[in-house]
C-alpha cells in the first residue's frame, strides 16, 4: 500500500536495494533457510546500510549477516538461528549479548496480528496469548483492551507497517507480479501491510508465464523487481534449488570465530564480490547447478543434505 500502478518496475539490484534507506523498518520474506532475500541482503551490506529495524517470523543467515555487517539496530524477529542442525546465530548472539543490537524478540502470531491491523486499516488488534510470557516485557508499545461483550481483558497490539518488505520469488514479471511456492510464510501479509515491496526473482518472465504459474503477490503491491539468478542462495528457492547446507556451515563457522574469519567470509562473498555475478562465480556455477539436482532422485536430494 498504496497500490503501485506502474507498468515497468524492473531495476538493477543496486537501485532496488537503494530503495531501503538507513534506519528503515524492514520486513524480511521467507523463513528459516528458505526463500530469504539474500541478494538484497548482500547488496545492502555492500551499500553499507545502517540502523535497520528488521521484523519477521523465523529467520537465519539473512538477519545474522546483516548483524555481522553492522547494518541492524533493532531486531524484532520471532527467531534467528540455524535450528538444531547448525545451532545459534553467531553474529546475532554476539551482538545481543554485547548490547550492540536491540532485541525486541516477537512472536509469529503477534506479528501476524499486527500486520493484519495494518492490512485492515485498524489502529489496533486484540490477541489471545502473550499474557504470561516475558516477551511482553520487550514490547512497551503493547496495550490492553477490554472486550465489550465478555469483559475479558486482552493484549492489544498496534499495526505494523514496514517501510519496505524484501521478498524473493522464483518467477516474476517486470510489472511486479510474483509467483511463490508454499509455504508463503508472511510474504503475502508483508506485501499488503508494507509501504513498498522490493523483490528479486530468479527469473524474469512474461506476465502470461507468471499468470500460468499463479500470481501469489500481485503487481499492484510491488514497487520494484530485480532479476537475480540464485537470489536466495545459500537458502532454498524451490522448485529451482535446495538450500546450500555446506555453505551455511561455512558461514556459521566463520561467524562463530568472528574477527578475521568473519571478515574473510564477508570479503570473499559480499563486499569483495561487488555484484551478484561475482558472488555466483565465487560460489561456483557447478555448486549452484548441483543444488538444482534435488529433483533427480531421493538419493540425490539426501546427498545434498548429508
Amino acid at each position: 500500500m498504496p497500490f503501485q500502478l506502474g507498468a515497468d518496475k524492473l531495476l538493477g539490484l543496486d537501485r532496488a536495494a537503494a530503495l531501503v534507506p538507513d534506519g528503515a523498518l524492514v520486513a524480511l520474506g521467507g523463513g528459516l533457510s528458505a526463500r530469504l532475500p539474500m541478494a538484497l541482503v548482500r547488496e545492502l551490506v555492500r551499500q553499507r546500510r545502517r540502523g535497520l529495524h528488521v521484523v519477521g517470523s523465523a529467520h537465519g543467515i539473512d538477519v545474522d549477516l546483516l548483524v555481522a555487517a553492522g547494518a541492524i539496530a533493532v531486531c524484532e524477529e520471532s527467531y534467528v538461528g540455524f535450528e538444531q542442525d547448525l545451532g545459534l546465530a553467531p553474529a546475532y548472539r554476539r551482538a545481543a549479548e554485547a548490547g550492540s543490537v536491540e532485541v525486541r524478540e516477537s512472536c509469529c502470531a503477534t506479528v501476524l496480528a499486527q500486520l493484519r491491523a495494518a492490512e485492515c486499516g485498524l489502529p489496533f488488534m486484540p490477541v489471545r496469548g502473550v499474557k504470561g510470557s516475558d516477551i511482553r516485557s520487550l514490547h512497551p508499545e503493547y496495550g490492553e483492551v477490554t472486550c465489550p461483550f465478555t469483559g475479558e481483558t486482552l493484549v492489544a497490539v498496534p499495526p505494523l507497517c514496514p517501510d519496505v518488505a524484501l521478498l524473493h520469488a522464483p518467477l516474476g514479471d517486470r510489472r511486479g507480479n510474483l509467483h511463490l511456492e508454499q509455504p508463503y510464510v508472511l510474504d503475502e501479509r508483508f506485501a499488503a501491510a508494507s509501504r513498498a515491496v522490493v523483490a528479486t526473482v530468479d527469473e524474469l518472465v512474461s506476465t502470461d508465464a507468471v499468470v500460468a504459474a499463479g500470481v501469489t503477490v500481485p503487481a499492484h503491491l510491488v514497487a520494484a523487481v530485480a532479476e537475480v539468478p540464485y537470489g536466495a542462495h545459500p537458502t532454498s528457492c524451490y522448485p529451482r534449488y535446495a538450500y546450500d547446507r555446506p555453505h551455511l556451515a561455512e558461514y556459521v563457522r566463520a561467524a562463530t570465530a568472528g574477527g578475521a574469519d568473519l571478515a574473510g567470509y564477508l570479503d570473499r562473498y559480499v563486499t569483495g564480490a561487488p555484484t551478484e555475478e561475482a558472488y555466483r562465480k565465487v560460489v561456483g556455477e557447478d555448486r549452484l547447478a548441483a543444488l538444482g539436482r534435488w529433483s533427480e532422485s531421493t538419493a540425490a536430494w539426501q546427498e545434498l543434505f548429508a
Partner: protein
Amino acid sequence: MNFSLDEWFVVALARTIRDREVVFHGFGSPCAQVAMHVARHTHARDMLLVEGATYAVNPDPPFVPPTGNDLALQQGAPYRMRFEEFFDAAVRGDVDRMFLSGGQIDAYGNTNVTAIGPVSAPKVKLGGGGGGCNLAATIGHLTLWTTRHRSGRALVERCDFVTDMGHRTPEGSRAELGFTGGGPEWLVTELGVFDYDAGGRARLRQLFPDVGVEDVRAATGFEVGVAPDLRPVPPPGTAELAVLRAADPLGVRRSEFSARDLERTFTHGHRPGCGC
C-alpha cells in the same frame, strides 16, 4: 532387539500423541518431527499431522532434512495450510497438541528459548520462541522435551525468561489468565518421563533403565516429585523402530543428543508389557 537411546526417546515422545489428535511441532525439533511420523504410522493413524515450518498436512516425507522449512517435508501432503490458517486454527483451539522444548524448563513447565541471564544483557542469547508465546496459550496439550537434562542447566526452579507459559507464572495460573489450552501434559528427557501434578508441577513417572532417581534429582534444578507408580519407560516396539528408521535415514534426530547419550544402547527380548 537392539536400539539406541535416541530411538527410544523419539518413541517415548511419539507415545504422548493420542489417535485423532491434531498435532504440531515447532522448527528446530527433529526428535518431535520424527516422533509425529512414528505415531501417525503406528498407534495414531488418524491423527492430523501439521509439519512445523511448512504447515503441510499429513505429508509422507522421503526423509527428514536438517532444516524444518524444506520441500521434502511437504511431499505427499494433500494440503498445505497458509501460515495464518495454521495460527488461526491453533489460536481458536482446533490444534490438540504441540511439541515444545527450551534451553530452560522450570517446574511448572514454563520454557525459555530467549535468553540465559538477564535479557537486557544475556549470558547466552538463544534463538527465540517462534509462535510459541501465543500457541502455548491455546493449543490443547503440550508435550515438552529436552535432551540436555543431564547438563543440570535445562531443568531449573525458575526460568531466567519465560518465553512460553506452562502451568503457572508470577502473572498467575492459566485459568487466571483466561487461557483455553491445557498446558504441559508430558515432559520427556533423556533420563525419564514426567507428567504434571494437580498443582501443575512436574512429577517423575518413568525412568530409562540405566538411570536412577538420584541421577534425576542430581540433574534437576527443582525438587523432583516422584509418582507412587514410578516405572521404567516402556520399550519401543519393532513397528515403531521400523517406521522411525525409515522416516529418518539421515539421523537428524541424533543432532539433539550429547555424544555420551548417543552411545546408550539397549537390548530386550519379548517380555510381558513389551511393545514389540
